[in-house]
């Protein structure tokens, strides 16, 4: 099967005359595609990321480049779970790359569906996000164990996950994971333990006072306690600066989605005084 070298290069620009954000598609190369932007109340632009292949094939190199200009507000979601298909033993791992820039006083909400690595999948995902002064970010990602309905749990060959967040050039988050269920058992008490799903939610706004984060941490800590149950645990903590990270490990995906929404609603209200608007699709 042919390898895909997809590219989606997007720019969100604030149009002050109409007080709304407009999408500019700078380049799109299949299988990645965006059809149109939807205007949200308040003038933000919502887009859905499409992968016309239906999933990620071995050897694919798929790049997403997003620039959110000063004062613009963008919400990005997917049309469904990102499926990482089975890879032949000799095939190159699929590569997913994202380069994101959120400029002064802009806001990006990146709220995709889970990543599902199929049995024998091999994939490397690297994301780099740069925030300028005053820029905000709500970014979540959920990793599923595989196609659970088919009994696939941690049967992928290799997943390399990298997420880097910088604010004005200073590293705030640099998370690197090499998940190889055969060589490094994921059921370890250091890794997943008895859980199967992992979710991470970064909540950032560059330049906010430390007291803001202390207050928000207290509010979200209450949610974390309430949302924790025998099948899911939530934790949250302050990053070195400019934000918080919320993390969950769960035995199922449903509770994660519900929890992410709850954290997002509280954080959006606290940081922007606005309601979190759930992307129009399946929720």
């Amino acid at each position, binding site marked *: 099967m042919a390898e895909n070298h997809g590219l989606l290069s997007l720019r969100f620009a604030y149009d002050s005359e109409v007080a709304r954000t407009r999408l500019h598609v700078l380049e799109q190369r299949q299988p990645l595609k965006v059809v149109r932007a939807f205007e949200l109340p308040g003038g933000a632009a919502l887009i859905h990321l499409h992968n016309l292949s239906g999933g990620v094939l071995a050897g694919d190199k798929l790049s997403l480049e997003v620039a959110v200009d000063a004062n613009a507000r963008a919400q990005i979601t997917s049309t469904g779970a990102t499926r990482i298909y089975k890879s032949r033993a000799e095939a190159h791992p699929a590569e997913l790359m994202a380069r994101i820039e959120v400029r002064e006083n802009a806001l990006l909400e990146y709220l995709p569906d889970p990543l599902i690595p199929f049995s024998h999948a091999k994939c490397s995902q690297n994301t780099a996000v740069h925030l300028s002064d005053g820029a905000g970010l709500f970014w979540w990602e959920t990793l599923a164990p595989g196609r659970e309905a088919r009994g696939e749990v941690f049967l992928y060959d290799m997943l*390399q*996950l*990298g997420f*880097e*967040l910088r604010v004005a050039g*200073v*590293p*705030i*988050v*640099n*998370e*690197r*994971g*090499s*998940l190889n269920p055969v060589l*490094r*058992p994921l059921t*370890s*008490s*250091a*890794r*997943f*333990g*008895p*859980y199967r799903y*992992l979710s991470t939610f970064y909540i950032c706004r560059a330049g906010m006072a430390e007291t803001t984060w202390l207050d928000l941490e207290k509010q979200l*800590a209450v949610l*974390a*306690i309430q949302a924790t149950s025998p099948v899911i*645990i*939530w*934790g*949250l*903590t*302050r*990053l*070195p600066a400019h934000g918080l*990270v919320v*993390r*969950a*490990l769960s035995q199922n995906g449903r509770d994660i989605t519900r929890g992410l929404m709850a954290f997002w609603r509280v954080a959006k209200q606290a940081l922007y005084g606005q309601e979190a608007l759930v992307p129009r699709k399946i929720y």
Partner: protein
Amino acid sequence: MKLIQLADSALPVGGAAHSFGLETLVAEELLTRETLAAFLRDYLEEIGVLEAGFCRAAYHVACSNWPVLNQELSARKPARENREASLILGRRFLQLLGTLEGCEIPEGESHYAMAFGYAGRMLRVPESSTAAVYLQQSVTALVSACLRLMPVGQQRAARLLWDLKPAILKAVQASAVAELAAVPAFTPLLEIASMRHVVLETRLFIS
């Protein structure tokens, strides 16, 4: 000899006050006496390699680049509880080193692994040996915490640490070949445990 003293668990820097998430794991029955050995090996495979890498980097870094390296390690530690514990221990360690050895110490914040690498250089201990001794004291601290948290006796603790030597050397070796910025360290359950430590009803260790 001097570095061995600095690696002693009785060193007055406060290492015994932190469990780095273990207290939560034990309280929530996610870490038991039976799974402890595997946990420690996995810890060395992930965090051990990362910290040994920063220990090595600090061994070589000029003081002017110290804050940059320190920021990079802070970014690798998402859980505030672990990050701040590492910074507190690192600063105290450097102050003690400066007092004992009479040497200059880097200014500003310093993670423990980096402070240890700096001490190895000051004491002219080879880089790999410095990283190995650092990891030895790291896992010793974890096992000491477990002595207070679960039914693990002194004999069993000694056996655990004895059996971890190959894993320590493997982590040191892995830290030498990897590009520091790309070294993986995947321990989500331990991180969440660190984050949740503050909400435990009773705590032996500080958050």
